[in-house]
């Protein structure tokens, strides 16, 4: 059983959700047969400019083939086309132009898939919304499995994706909410789909004390992990946490780990530590009272799973169906839809150590039952078997 993982970017230092998801699954599925990754030379997800040399290499034991991007993304042109397809009446041709502008445009990659279809038993496409998935699925529909990693963002309503969601032989969804959304939008209930998600690489040990000592942190803190961006709900988070501290007088700190594209309020209890190594991330999680997830759009949220794996509760944005659904299914997190709910939920969590402990325990059990690697691998194998490997 030879598998081809098709993804827009691939590399050890690429930490985008879908890309990391693809890399981890590829590395784990290597144990069951030959695995290849078909990807582009891009590193930057804004421009998709060629960064890696075209050709082949091996990363963590996985054979990788890279193909050139024929033209980097013109950001202004892409914005113009996106505004057009999202806000005005338009034709399918406009949407195809938008897809082309979005990139990473790599006809070489699609041509390779077409020519070498017979060399692989299955093509696993990651991220429905990019060039390689759209054209790749149309090229080899009978051998394709789609891992859509879809969020509830407006582009999923574009007409060109409705047909695409009916093409693959099987789906691997990240959550029940993602499956329901895609099935409702495209009417593809007859296409087999399984909710799988992804595991995570946990360190052998973690130490909250080490993290506190390294970064000079004292007192209780809540943690945000990920890109600090308005799209991730961070602007609301800053507003809410400042109001929370003013209203309740709580000494809790907000610790932010990740690169930022948003100005961070100058407040002694908001600490931005920048992008940190994985070990520091888990050390920080281990010492946090809870993880806060203010994002409006998520297809799974790997950091939420990591928090639960370490037994930490989560406070999530209720406007994100996936996060709310995960909190309710796991009984391991609270959620908020406005400031008053944020304040009360955070107040309850910070004031009740036993509640944090119980939620954390539930989270760990939920993670163990659904997201350990042996379970994920078994589910992938079942999907592949069902798809006729």
């Amino acid at each position, binding site marked *: 059983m030879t598998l081809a993982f098709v993804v827009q970017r691939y590399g050890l230092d690429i930490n985008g959700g879908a890309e990391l998801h693809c890399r981890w699954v590829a590395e784990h599925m290597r144990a069951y047969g030959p695995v290849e990754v078909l990807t582009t030379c891009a590193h930057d997800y804004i421009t998709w400019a060629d960064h890696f040399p075209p050709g082949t290499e091996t990363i963590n034991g996985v054979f990788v083939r890279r193909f050139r991007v024929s033209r980097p993304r013109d950001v202004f042109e892409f914005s113009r086309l996106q505004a057009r397809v999202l806000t005005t009446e338009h034709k399918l041709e406009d949407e195809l132009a938008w897809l082309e502008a979005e990139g990473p445009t790599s006809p070489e990659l699609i041509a390779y898939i077409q020519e070498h279809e017979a060399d692989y038993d299955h093509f696993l496409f990651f991220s429905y919304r990019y060039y390689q998935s759209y054209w790749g699925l149309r090229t080899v529909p009978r051998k394709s499995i789609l891992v859509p990693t879809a969020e509830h963002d407006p582009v999923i309503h574009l007409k060109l994706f*409705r*047909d695409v969601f*009916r093409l693959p032989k099987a789906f691997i969804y990240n959550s029940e909410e993602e499956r329901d959304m895609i099935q*409702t*939008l*495209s*009417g593809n209930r007859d296409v087999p789909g399984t909710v799988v998600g992804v595991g995570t690489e946990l360190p052998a040990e973690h130490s909250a004390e080490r993290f506190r000592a390294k970064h000079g942190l004292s007192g*209780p803190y809540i943690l945000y992990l990920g890109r600090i961006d308005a799209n991730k709900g961070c602007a609301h988070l800053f507003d809410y946490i400042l109001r929370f501290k003013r*209203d*309740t*007088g*709580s*000494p*809790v700190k907000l610790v932010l780990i990740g690169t930022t594209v948003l100005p961070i309020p100058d407040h002694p209890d908001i600490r931005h530590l920048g992008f940190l190594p994985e070990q520091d991330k888990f050390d920080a999680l281990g010492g946090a009272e809870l993880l806060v997830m203010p994002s409006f759009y998520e297809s799974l949220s790997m950091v939420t799973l990591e928090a639960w794996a370490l037994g930490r509760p989560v406070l999530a944005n209720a406007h994100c169906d996936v996060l709310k659904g995960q*909190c*309710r299914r796991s*009984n*391991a*997190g*609270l*959620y908020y839809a*406005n400031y*008053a*709910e944020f*304040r*009360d*939920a955070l*107040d*309850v969590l*910070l*004031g*009740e*150590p*036993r*509640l944090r402990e*119980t*939620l954390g325990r*539930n989270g760990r059990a939920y993670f163990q039952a659904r997201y350990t690697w042996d379970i994920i691998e078994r589910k992938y194998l079942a999907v592949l078997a069902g798809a006729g490997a």
Partner: protein
Amino acid sequence: MKPEAPMDKSQPDTRDILDVINVDYENLDVSVLMDQIQKAVAAEASDPETGTAAAPPQWPAPPDLPAAPPPPPPAPEPAPAPAGLKSKLQGRAIRLLTPFFPVLRLLGLPLHQELRATQQSLHATNVRLDGVVQELGGSLDQARRDLNKSQEYIKLLHNLSHNLILAATSQKIEFDLLKSKVRMLEKELEFARKRERALEEEVLK
């Protein structure tokens, strides 16, 4: 529910959510907990002291009410008494009668008639108001029932339009698919016809 070891707060919270939340640790259900928090938030919003609900509206005075009557003219001061014994007696009589001046004024002036007229007018107004309230009460109940019906109807319409959109989307996809299949069949038919003609030619040669 009392916290086991709540975090220190530098200043007291005016409203402690922990007092109104009840956590069942044996059967912890996040949905139930969130319902309690949402109810507490809703209760706070409707509390006029702490909440953010708008103050009740101040009703303006009806425009067609008559203006308040002008105050009655001040009671005439007693005329200065003539000098001597008579004036002394008059002065004493005035001092003695001073406490009774309001009653005397009431009897002497037609105020009692105005009061009676005002009272009758108020009574008539009350009777009319009672009628209006009774009539409006029935209308309000009816309006409330109508509003509830309308809300249900709107919900049904919303669901219907949602379902229609879903059905229309699904039909469009099916339509496109069938159209593609028809095109393919047309091509196959065309090919079969050509083949048929070619075979006929071969056979008839």
